[in-house]
C-alpha cells in the first residue's frame, strides 16, 4: 500500500528530476513526494485532473517488465497521451513530461539497459518544458518549435505503428499458411556417389557467423542480471583493494561485452560515491603525457 501510494504521488507531482541521476540511480524519496502532493496536482491546460487512468499505477518491481512492453520512448509517450485522453496536436506537454519523468525515475540501475533511449527522450522533454516555462523572447527565433517537432515525430511514429499492425494482420507464410515440404528422390539415384564435404566448411560457417556485424552485441541483449551490478562492485573492490590502483580498462571483464562496460562504469561511480575509490590524477603519474585519453582512466583504492 505504502509503495503504491508513493508512485501515485510521484505521478501527480511535478517534481523536478534530473534525468540522469533520476534515471539510473535515484529512487523517489517517499516523504518528499507525499509533502509535495498536498499542494500540487496534475493540470491539463489549467484544468486540474483528479482521476488518473487506473492502469497508470504500477508497482515498482513490475515497472521495468511493464516498460518492456513498449517499443520505445515514442510508444510510451503515445500511451501517456492516449491515457490523458487528449488529441495529439493538443498534447499538454507539461503534465505529460512530468508523468514521463516520474516513470523513468522508476527505472533503477537494474534495468538501465532500457534506459538510454528513454533518457534521451527525457532530455528532449525537459528542453521543451524549459522553453515553455521561460518567458517568450520578443524577437522571433528561426529555429523550429521543438514541441511541434516532437508532435510530428509522435504522429509519424503512430502512423508506422498502426501500419505495422496492418502488416501483421496480413495472411503470412509460416504463420497462417505453410509451404509444403517434400524430400528429394533417393540419394543414390540422384547421384551415384555422395558428395564429400570438407569439415572446414563447418568452421568457416562459424567464423562467418561470429564476424557478422553486431553478432556480439546481440549476445549481450540478455535481460536483467546478465551482469549483476552488485557482483561488479564486489569484483572491482577486490581487484582495487588488492592492487591499490588499476586502469578502468583492466577492471573490465571482457567476456561481458558492452553491457559489462556500462555496468562496470556504474559500479565505479557507486564506489566513488561511497568514497571507497578515487580517480588517480593523471598529472601525478610520472612521465604521463596521455592524460587526455579516456583509456588512461586510472582508479585507486581509498579505504
Amino acid at each position, binding site marked *: 500500500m505504502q509503495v503504491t501510494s508513493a508512485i501515485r504521488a510521484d505521478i501527480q507531482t511535478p517534481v523536478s528530476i534530473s534525468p540522469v541521476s533520476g534515471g539510473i540511480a535515484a529512487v523517489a524519496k517517499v516523504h518528499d513526494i507525499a509533502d509535495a502532493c498536498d499542494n500540487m496536482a496534475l493540470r491539463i491546460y489549467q484544468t486540474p485532473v483528479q482521476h488518473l487512468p487506473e492502469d497508470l499505477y504500477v508497482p515498482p518491481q513490475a515497472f521495468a517488465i511493464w516498460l518492456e512492453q513498449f517499443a520505445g520512448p515514442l510508444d510510451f509517450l503515445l500511451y501517456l497521451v492516449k491515457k490523458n485522453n487528449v488529441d495529439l496536436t493538443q498534447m499538454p506537454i507539461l503534465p505529460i513530461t512530468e508523468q514521463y519523468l516520474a516513470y523513468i525515475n522508476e527505472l533503477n540501475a537494474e534495468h538501465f539497459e532500457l534506459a538510454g533511449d528513454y533518457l534521451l527522450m527525457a532530455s528532449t522533454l525537459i528542453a521543451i518544458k524549459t522553453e515553455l516555462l521561460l518567458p517568450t523572447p520578443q524577437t522571433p527565433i528561426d529555429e523550429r518549435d521543438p514541441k511541434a517537432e516532437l508532435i510530428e515525430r509522435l504522429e509519424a511514429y503512430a502512423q508506422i505503428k*498502426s501500419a505495422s499492425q496492418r*502488416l*501483421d494482420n496480413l495472411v503470412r507464410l509460416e504463420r497462417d499458411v505453410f509451404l509444403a515440404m517434400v524430400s528429394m528422390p533417393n540419394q543414390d539415384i540422384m547421384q551415384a556417389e555422395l558428395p564429400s564435404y570438407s569439415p572446414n566448411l563447418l568452421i568457416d560457417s562459424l567464423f562467418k557467423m561470429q564476424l557478422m556485424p553486431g553478432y556480439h552485441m546481440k549476445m549481450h541483449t540478455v535481460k536483467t542480471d546478465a551482469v549483476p551490478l552488485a557482483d561488479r562492485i564486489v569484483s572491482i573492490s577486490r581487484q582495487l583493494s588488492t592492487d591499490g590502483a588499476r586502469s578502468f580498462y583492466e577492471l573490465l571483464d571482457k567476456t561481458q561485452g558492452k553491457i559489462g562496460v556500462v555496468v562496470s562504469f556504474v559500479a565505479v561511480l557507486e564506489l566513488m560515491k561511497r568514497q571507497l575509490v578515487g580517480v588517480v590524477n593523471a598529472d601525478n603519474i610520472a612521465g604521463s603525457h596521455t592524460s587526455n585519453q579516456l583509456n588512461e582512466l586510472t582508479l585507486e583504492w581509498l579505504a
Partner: protein
Amino acid sequence: MAMVDNAKQDNSKQTLSVSLEQQDEAINKHETISRHIEVLLHASEAPITANVLKKYLSLSTQELQQALEILQARLKNGVLSLNETASGYRLQITDSYSPLIQRVFPQRQERLSQALLETLSVIAYKQPVTRSDIEYVRGVTLSSNILRQLFDKGWIIENGYKDTLGRPALLHTTPQFLDAFGLTSLEQLPPMPDMESIKAIS
C-alpha cells in the same frame, strides 16, 4: 454423285478421328507437362516464375497456361494448392489445414516482435531508408539483432548509399518479403493510416 458423297463422308470421318487422337495426345502431353511443373515446384527452394518454367520445360505461353490449369484441377482433390506470388509459383498446404499444422507443430508458427514489425514497416513504407532513418521514426536505437533477422529471412537488402556524411547504406524490401506476406507488389501493401485519424487519437 452418291460416290462422291460417300467419299466426302469417309473423309470427314477420318478427319474427325485424327483430330480426336491429336486431342488425346495433346491432353496427355499437357498432363505430363503439369506433372513436370509439380515436380519442379516441389524441388525448388524458391518460387519459380512463368518464364523460368517456360525455359526449363521448353513451353509456349499457351502450353504453360494449359498445364497450370490441369495442375490446379488435379491439386483440387488433394491437400496442396498452387499459389502465384511476387516471385513466381509455389506449392503450399491448403489454408483449411492450417489449424491442424498449428496444433501439431506449434514451433512452425513464426511470431514477429513489435520491434521487428515496426522496423520492417518503416523500411517497407518509406524505402529506401538508412538505419538512422529507422531510429528517428521509432525513437529507439536499432538493435542489430532485428536487422540480422530481417536480412536472414531475405526480406530486406542493402542497395546503394545515401549521399550524406558516412554514406550510410540504403535498405529496401525484397520480393521474398512480398512472398511472405502474400503480396504481389508493393502497391498491395495495406494503405498507411491517414494522419487525421492518427491525430484524433482518443
